């Protein structure tokens, strides 16, 4: 493994059309160092790293590796120099097996014939080094998102990497998996690899990074050693204003004894969760905290009819419900925001207005059938302000042109317009920057105050502490703890989920 790479970029600038995205940005990282790159969506982080990995060409600026000027004209050149990037979106081949994915493009071969045994040894050794238990023969498409991400990282590690760029690698990982990734990053650092780590999560910065660089509006807003910086300083540098992150939302309320909006009684779904008992009432936000694969997502999905219980009961508004499909759940007043925005929630090529109105079409239409684009546009304009969507304000704008946080606001607006009694959300702020996250939390709180029951399945303990009136902790398919809001701390959550005692 090559030692002591030193990568320096000075005075990088990049414009798209008349819009300047990077202004005179300096960045340096050397072997054995983890540099965290922090910033809101649109701050220029991706453009900066894309310039480094050869995806974009900067308009001005110099790149040096070990003191020599280089021009990284394409990703292939970056790879030849030992610079690899793990993208946030999955770039795998879902119909191939884990071992085939790990060796994708770098098949061990002789005379053009792939040596399957070597491919397997390679996969097994890399995965065990990562501390991951995965069947190397299983198809990647059948894995959970977190597992697929690990396979992608494993793939990058088959080549000799001197500088590794990670774009929000833990967005879809459970705490246990994330912790294993951090340990692995430490091992890479010890071996002299330079690591650029893009993230929104402040905890991770303090967990993995030696240095942190904050970008805002295309300029470096802060650059310093992690140990000298406070959370508050990082947040202020990111959003450019003071933000009281710890402020508890107003309007938390005790349960009244009325009929629960959602009640699960001894709910069991074979192999996923068993004997789950919980109630969610009007006006409260209840969090289901659990690692990826703990069953928390499935419990939440059950309330929307995505799964059918093997045994036990599901009661909505005091009526026992056996949903056969999501549309039954919708008719009973349940709304649902899935975890994977792009795959399960967005109509990618359609307009913001259509994306906002989809579940409400039947109600918005005259005679339940006729719906003019103008009526849809009117509905969108009504929500545009309250949701705080940053867009052109044109209802015809394609949703794909919005940032992740703003897409999520539109999707939340979907259920505000639909007016549901119970809203089920999975990982509502995954891949959403800090500023938009606060706005989403505010919207959810407003929604609860207006009387909706909200249930949030999340693997982010910070989210639980910040948002929930009550929280359940799920591990291995069973509810292991329940906390009221004043008992909620991140330590207690982690302890209850069994993460502290050496990651199960």
């Amino acid at each position, binding site marked *: 493994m090559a030692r002591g790479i030193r990568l320096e970029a000075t005075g990088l600038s990049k414009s*798209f*059309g*008349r*819009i300047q*995205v990077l202004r005179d940005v300096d960045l340096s990282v050397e072997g054995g160092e983890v540099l965290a790159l922090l910033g*809101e*969506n*649109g*701050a*220029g982080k991706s*453009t900066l790293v894309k310039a480094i990995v050869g995806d974009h060409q900067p308009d001005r600026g110099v790149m040096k590796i070990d003191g020599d000027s280089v021009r990284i004209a394409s990703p292939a050149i970056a790879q030849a120099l030992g610079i690899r990037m793990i993208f946030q979106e999955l770039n795998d081949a879902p119909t191939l097996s884990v071992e085939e994915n790990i060796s994708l493009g770098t098949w061990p071969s002789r005379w053009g014939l792939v040596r399957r045994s070597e491919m397997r040894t390679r996969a097994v050794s890399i995965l065990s080094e990562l501390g991951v238990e995965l069947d190397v023969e299983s198809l990647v498409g059948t894995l959970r998102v977190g597992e697929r991400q690990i396979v992608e990282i494993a793939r990058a590690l088959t080549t000799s990497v001197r500088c590794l760029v990670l774009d929000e690698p833990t967005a879809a990982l459970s705490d246990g998996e994330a912790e294993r990734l951090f340990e692995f990053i430490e091992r890479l650092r010890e071996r002299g690899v330079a690591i650029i780590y893009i993230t929104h999560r402040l905890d991770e910065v303090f967990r993995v990074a030696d240095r942190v660089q904050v970008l*805002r*509006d*295309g300029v470096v807003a802060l650059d310093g050693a992690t140990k000298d910086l406070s959370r508050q300083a990082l947040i202020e540098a990111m*959003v*450019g204003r003071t933000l009281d992150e710890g402020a508890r939302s107003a309007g938390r309320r005790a349960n009244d004894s009325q009929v629960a909006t959602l009640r699960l009684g001894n709910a069991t779904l074979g192999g996923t969760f068993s004997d789950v008992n919980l109630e969610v009432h009007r006006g409260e936000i209840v969090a289901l905290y659990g690692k990826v694969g703990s069953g928390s997502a499935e419990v939440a999905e059950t309330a*929307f009819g995505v799964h059918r219980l093997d045994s036990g009961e599901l009661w909505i508004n005091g009526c026992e419900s056996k949903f056969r*499909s*999501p*549309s039954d759940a*919708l*008719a009973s007043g349940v709304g*649902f925001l*899935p975890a994977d925005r792009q*795959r*399960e*929630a*967005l*109509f*990618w*090529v*359609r*307009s913001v207005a*259509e994306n906002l109105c*989809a*579940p409400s*079409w*039947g109600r918005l*239409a005259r005679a*339940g*059938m*006729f*719906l*003019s*684009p103008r009526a849809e546009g009117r509905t969108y304009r009504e929500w545009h302000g309250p949701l705080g969507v*940053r*867009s*052109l*304000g*044109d209802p*015809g*704008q*394609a949703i*794909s*042109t*919005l*940032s992740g946080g*703003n897409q999520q606001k539109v999707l939340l607006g*979907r259920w505000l317009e639909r007016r549901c009694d119970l809203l089920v959300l999975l990982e509502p702020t995954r891949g959403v920057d800090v*500023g938009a996250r606060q706005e989403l939390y505010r919207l959810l709180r407003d929604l609860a105050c207006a009387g909706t029951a909200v249930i949030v399945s999340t693997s982010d303990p910070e989210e639980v502490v910040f948002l929930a009136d009550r929280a359940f902790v799920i591990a291995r398919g069973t509810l292991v703890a329940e906390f009221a809001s004043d008992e909620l701390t991140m330590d207690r959550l982690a302890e209850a989920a069994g993460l502290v005692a050496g990651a199960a």
Partner: protein
Amino acid sequence: MDANNALVGAESSSATDVDDRVRRRPTLTHMIRSELLALIVVLLGLGLFFTLSSPFFLSWNNWLNILSAVAVTGIVAAPATMLLIAGQFDLSVGAGAAFVGAVLAVTLESNGLAASLALAIAAGLALGLLNGLLVSVVRVNALIATLGTLAIFRGFTRLITDGQNVRLDGFSWLGTSRLPFRVPVAVAIFAGVMLLFGFIGRSTVFGRRIYAVGSNPVAARLSGIKPERVVFSGFLISAACVTLSGLILVSQLGAASPNAATGLEFAVITAVVLGGTTLAGGKGTILGTLLGLLIIAVLNNGLTLLNISSFWQEVARGTLLILAVSLDQIRRRLSNK
């Protein structure tokens, strides 16, 4: 123009809003408009060229010819656009149209017009039910399912006609009679179908569902839409239009041919794709399909007026299709940069 819009939008928003400025892409309406505009320019260009090269091109009679030539294809292309937007194909349209005509011709003499019309319509709906069941209940890929029903119904057509043309009398009104200004009934029906589907796509909940299902079936399901139902309805509607076109065709020819409407599926897909509907689903317009139909029809008509062999017309049609789709791909790649 689009860049200006993006800038205006950015100025009025906050400083943390770089994202929308960076990813300034034209809005959906702009994109669709620019695609349609390109088609209109091509159509006008062809029109101008043929007007200059042939004195007959611009005459009312010639335009009625052009419209008559696309009427049958167009009546099927409208629901095909809808299906393709929903991410589905129907390859069985030609076989279906031939079968409907054959059923009518074979049963007409012994059963009388009303009964044999009912049988023909039932035959068309059977095709729609079969396609719909296969695709949305059994979940066979639409391309394969309708390739199968194409073969089955073409086979049935040849069986019941014994492989011979079957003459039919007393059913010429639909295909040959004319309305004021000598507009053929078929052309009026074509216009009506286009208007109807344009309205469905733009201003009905069903139309929205079609776009939603084609854009992302999972998200559609989680928004309370039943994608299988939407797709099933799509195939039924397609079959209804196929029935209509089959009746017009047999009426125009005065006979049912076992080889009638061969290749109709290709003509339809060519027009729909030329009109800007994407194979990936979720995008497309009826107006685009109409322009696609007219471009092909004008091209064929003009080349005929110039006495160019009809074999060359096929070459020209294929070239045009590939050119249009390639240009679209290239344009998209440039705008994504």
